[in-house]
């Protein structure tokens, strides 16, 4: 075909940019993670001119309590709690908005509004709302919710539940969420859910709208109730959307930085510390570049495990279509 050379020449800048800024930079980070570049010294040459020490940085990393188990634990709890909460709320809102609601557009826009904000803005606002002295407690106290809260916490039969939530650091019934290590992770999950659940709602709503009216009608003709239509016809159709949602939210969770960094700085102590914060502070405050590089590579590997199969299946089904 005419213009093939020109086509390739015009695509070359993007290909080269990706090669350098994505693939070579990743390789560079990996190389750096194998060196002893844990000191302040300007680099000479193209690669870190420090001796290669093999996987020693990774050994150090996994021998550091802050990373293993703490950061990995926090990331796992955050990811699971954030996904469950966002999917539950998003799906609920999508189904409710699918009921021929008056003011649907207004509701939908309100639920989506936080998506327009920076995590920095979200973190700033929620850090204040969760402030133990001035925040949410002052709103809930007059409503008598604080009494319910303390009542629940001291209700003996439920103690095992609170113990589990305390252990997972998401016991949001505790007072002063961001300052109590038993609850701080829960505070971050709530803020993240506030920001992202509208997106999940939009995805599910688009999925529901993608199901043809004929299919709904056919189910109705077969005598299915509205509830049965959702359970047996519509929600199973949402499976691909659910997979997309879980992968996207999972990818966001694994690298979450700004929200946690600004809300809690990883604290109290290291109760909400996550790999991205540890990586940032190691590299740009402690000048432990090689250690930071090893954290980054671990993050990359975990993300790749989540994302690559998804990307591959997406591109493959697209090729078949």
């Amino acid at each position, binding site marked *: 075909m005419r213009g093939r050379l020109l086509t390739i020449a015009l695509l070359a800048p993007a290909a080269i940019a990706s090669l350098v800024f994505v693939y070579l930079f990743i390789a560079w980070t990996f190389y750096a993670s194998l060196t002893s570049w844990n000191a302040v010294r300007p680099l000479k040459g193209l690669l870190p001119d420090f001796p290669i020490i093999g996987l020693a940085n990774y050994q150090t990393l996994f021998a550091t309590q802050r990373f293993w188990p703490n950061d990995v634990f926090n990331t796992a709890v955050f990811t699971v709690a954030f996904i469950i909460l966002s999917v539950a709320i998003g799906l609920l809102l999508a189904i409710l908005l699918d009921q021929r609601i008056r003011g649907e557009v207004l509701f939908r826009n309100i639920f989506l509004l936080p998506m327009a904000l*920076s995590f920095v803005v979200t973190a700033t606002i929620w850090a*204040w709302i969760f402030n133990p002295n001035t925040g949410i407690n002052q709103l809930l106290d007059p409503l008598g919710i604080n009494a319910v809260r303390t009542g629940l916490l001291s209700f003996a039969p439920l103690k095992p539940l609170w113990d589990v939530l305390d252990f997972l650091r998401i016991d949001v019934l505790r007072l002063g969420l961001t300052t109590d290590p038993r609850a701080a992770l829960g505070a971050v999950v709530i803020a993240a859910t*506030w920001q992202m659940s509208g997106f999940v709602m939009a995805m599910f709503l688009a999925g529901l709208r993608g199901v043809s009216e004929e299919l709904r009608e056919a189910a109705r003709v077969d005598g299915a109730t509205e509830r049965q239509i959702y359970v047996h016809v519509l929600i199973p159709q949402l499976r691909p959307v659910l997979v997309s949602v879980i992968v996207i939210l999972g990818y966001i969770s694994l690298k979450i*930085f700004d929200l946690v960094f600004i809300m809690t700085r990883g604290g109290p102590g290291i109760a909400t510390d996550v790999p991205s914060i540890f990586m940032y502070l190691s590299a740009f405050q402690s000048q432990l570049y090689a250690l930071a590089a090893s954290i980054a590579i671990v993050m990359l590997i975990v993300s790749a495990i989540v994302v690559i199969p998804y990307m591959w299946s997406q591109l493959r089904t697209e090729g078949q279509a």
Partner: protein
Amino acid sequence: MSEQTAAALTTPRPSTRRRTGFSWTRVLIYLVLFLFTIFYLLPVYVVVADSFKTLPEVSTTSIWQPPKSIDFGAWASALTPPLVGSGGIGSGLVNSVMMTVPAVVISSVWGSLNGYLLTKWRFRGADLLFAFLLFGMFIPYQAILIPLVQFLQRIGLYGTLPGLALTHIMYGIPITTLIFRNYYSAIPTELVEAANVDGAGVIGTYWRVILPLSIPGFVVVGIWQFTSIWNEFLFGVTLTNSPNVQPVTVALQNLAGSFAALYNVQMAGAIITAIPTVLAFVFLGRYFIRGLLAGSLKG
């Protein structure tokens, strides 16, 4: 996510059939929707109400109390903090505009060109190249951050707005290419072939046929890129080292650090930071949602 479902989302289902009268189920549905509306709007109320409070007021009253009067003191302090050299949201805003606008324009045009070539001038390996480009969208940026800093230092762009803009352009390639590729897939290839018959080449066809049809695509990509770049923090905080070049998100974070107790100033700063993207959302929400859904590949 296909264009059709995105379009279907932005137009509610027609309510022709089955008039729904009063029922307790519907009351319950509206009740739940209102409760969630409160959940989503409560922080918005707090941030707006408290940004108008004076310092004595903000430190003595509950954050939920409406302000006694509208006081713009906190807004002024947030824009230009009394502390010398602390930057403030004002200079952050200017920096963000200077950095975001060129980055959005360049990455949108670049993505449009890539998407056009990948769909309308298909060659062996086009899908492979697309996958190669797309991968950059799914990496945690921590994995490229250290060499990026080194690279920008070597070429003298570290700690500058052009350096930050360059970064956003480079890492914007996957998403802008993806959205335009999906967008152009819906445009009939016959149009391109017809232009070819008329003697238009790769660039001529792009200029005369594709570009005029691309306005909605540019709006979607433009809003997406504007929102992501404006809201971004990690690159902003690692690639700049002085308040003179810090984007607004970093300025807001610094504001929170240096004015730990002045919550009214922080809230005003948060609003000012959010205004541009919220305005884009309010006025171009339809396109914003399409960008959101496009981020999930094809759903």
